[in-house]
């Protein structure tokens, strides 16, 4: 009942947009409130997951902390709201969160008809399938007739339909509202395969009873560029969220990290000077202090540090940089120049 209730409340929130002056300056609201409202997942290791002390951790979480660092010089000034795949857009539209950082795929319809803007792609991903090793499968195409568990309200739910139909494969899709229910159903044997973005499969695998019994198939059936989204119609806020991300990429590219940030602040390189705020008024142009990037890197780190810590090869997920490497290192992560 509570789920239905929540949805109705969110819908009521939608009506409330009617009453409030929508499109108001989000940054002013955040500053006045003294905290950023950040929408995350309900628990996805590596991306957004509460640790045993109840602190949120992960790549999507760190991105929100970086925004808070830029605004408040304090990465803890974030209130995290766990959202299911289904409820996330309504929560953003109604103003319940200022930024949605929840492994959300940037698609055209979401960008255009849901009243959202995507600030960037913090993680390039693609959809994969997890199956039991005992099935001895090599490819998705051997899944003809299989039962597949998926979280409802995701791009994954749609991609399965496209792919299986295009390849003339039969399937039974069982869609659950939350990732916990999805994982439990797969774990109990109700489904032959669990499908989601590959990175999430590695994360969800950690939640299974017998991690070693399961494997992720090599096939990738879609493009899933995951990134943060904000409400359409507030350009200042859109700019800020976009440039926080670019700043983290540029910091990595220029070799600035959380350990050397103090030396780097004294650097003579014009690029570094602009990025770290000793030259120009770039911070002011997005409504924060000029040393915004120093704050971000000091508290959260650059993009590479954020990646390694949360999902990289040294983390439990153990994902290689791959596509998410910088553009000049064989990946496609590319920070627009600060100038």
């Amino acid at each position, binding site marked *: 009942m509570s789920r239905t209730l929540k949805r109705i409340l969110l819908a009521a929130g939608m009506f409330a947009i009617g009453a409030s002056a929508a499109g108001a300056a989000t940054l002013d609201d955040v500053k006045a409130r003294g905290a950023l409202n950040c929408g995350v997942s309900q628990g996805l290791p590596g991306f957004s997951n509460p640790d045993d002390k109840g602190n949120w951790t992960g790549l999507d979480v760190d991105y929100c902390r970086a925004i808070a660092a830029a605004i408040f010089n304090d990465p803890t000034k974030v209130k995290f709201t766990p959202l299911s795949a289904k409820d996330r857009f309504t929560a953003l539209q109604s103003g319940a969160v200022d930024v949605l950082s929840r492994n959300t795929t940037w698609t055209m319809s979401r960008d255009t008809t849901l009243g959202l803007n995507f600030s960037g792609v913090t993680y390039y991903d693609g959809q994969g399938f997890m199956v039991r090793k005992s099935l001895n499968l090599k490819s998705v195409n051997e899944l003809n007739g299989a*039962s597949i568990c998926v979280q409802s*309200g995701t791009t994954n739910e749609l991609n399965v339909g496209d792919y299986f139909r295009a390849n003339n494969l039969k399937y039974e899709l069982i869609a659950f509202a939350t990732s916990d229910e999805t994982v439990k159903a797969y774990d109990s044997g109700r489904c032959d395969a669990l499908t989601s973005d590959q990175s999430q499969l590695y994360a969800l695998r950690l939640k299974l009873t017998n991690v070693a019994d399961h494997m992720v198939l090599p096939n990738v059936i879609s493009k899933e560029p995951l990134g943060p989204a904000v409400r359409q119609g507030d350009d200042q806020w859109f700019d800020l969220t976009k440039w926080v991300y670019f700043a983290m990429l540029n910091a990595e590219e220029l070799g600035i990290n959380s350990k050397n940030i103090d030396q780097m602040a004294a650097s003579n390189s014009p690029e570094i000077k602009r990025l770290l705020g000793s030259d120009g008024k770039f911070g002011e142009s997005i409504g924060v202090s000029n040393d915004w990037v120093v704050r971000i890197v000091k508290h959260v780190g650059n993009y590479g540090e954020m990646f390694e810590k949360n999902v990289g090869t040294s983390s439990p997920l153990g994902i290689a940089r791959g596509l998410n490497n910088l553009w000049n290192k064989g990946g496609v992560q590319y920070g627009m120049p600060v100038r």
Partner: protein
Amino acid sequence: MTDARWSGSAPVRRWSWTDPALRSAVIQITLAIALIWMAWSFFANAQENLARQGIASGFGFMENSAGFGITQTLIPYSESMSYGRVFLVGLLNTLLVAFLGIILATIIGFLMGVARLSNNVVIRALASAYVEVTRNLPPLFQILFWYLAVLSTMPNPRQSWAFGIKPFLDSLASGASAIGLTPLGAWLKGMADAAAAPGVFVSNRGLVVPRPIFEPDANIIFGILVASVIVAFFVARWARKRREATGQQFPTFWAGLAIIVLPALAAGLVLGAPVTIENPELRGFNFVGGIRVIPEFVSLLVALSIYTAGFIAEIVRAGILAVSKGQTEAAHSLGLRSGPTLRLIIIPQAMRVIVPPLTSQYLNLTKNSTLGVAVGYPDLVAVFAGTTLNQTGQAIEIIALTMAVYLTISIVTSTLMGWYNKRVALVER
């Protein structure tokens, strides 16, 4: 106009606030205008703000193709069909579970309610335990219990429990031959041999049973069946009327059964049994063919029925207790045994007390069926107010439509029950 002659002496009406009729009319009209204005400005305002935020609005999306698969569809459906179709599929799934749930809950509820008043201590204690346990555990918990703790522990399809229908058909065949229906016996024997492979499978993918495939000739049998049901209905009515008038008994049940079954059976034999059986078969990951009942549906149906039956049992018990003890004593002293006393004297009177609260249990069950999202049952809320809403982002339209549907289901249920209540209401003579 005969009134004309009164007009002369009628008091002159004045516009005055002290006139209650006028006052209430003015207030009501003002209120109505204010409400309409509020609703309209609400709508216009929302429309304008949605447009400014770049959020789509209107019902145009209903024609767009949905793109996602649905596990259980009572009507043909594929991903390339529209959101409008998704709405229908979801609605039918909701109606299916609500309808069957109401029937099951009523049966279990009545049995338990009567059992709670039984003279047998064990039966009474069991029924009390049932009521206490089922009423006090949240329905969501019960749904998850059946889904995760019971149904998902079933074996996987390869190791599923298989039951043949052959032994069943064999025994029917020998039974038929024994009572002299030799051709029927032979036919059943043939069917049994045709269905030699097991046809019923239980696994963690649900229950699979053979699907009867009817040939065109079967329509004749269906026609005969429908006609027999109508005849049986009129015979039952005639029997009741005669009993009420003359007190003469008539074996309505057995006669009705014969009227319904025998002509159809005869037609079936004449037409050479125009039905074949499609046995499900394990192919790859799952069963192909047959009819499959998914565990999501079963767990939701079982949990809702059992949960609601707990409440219905209490309602039934209260209803029976509301009938004065003198009625039972009077029936007994007339020589009626306990069974008929309950069935013919007590329950009909108790119905007056039972029906109104029963209605609200039916409504509760229907609304609780939305909890099926937790186990992935594709009801209206899951596929329409859930996935469709998420994909199109059109919360206002979709929530409004969904609310309208539940409101309609509730109103229809209450109306039907209200009509039934009038029929069982005490007729004062």
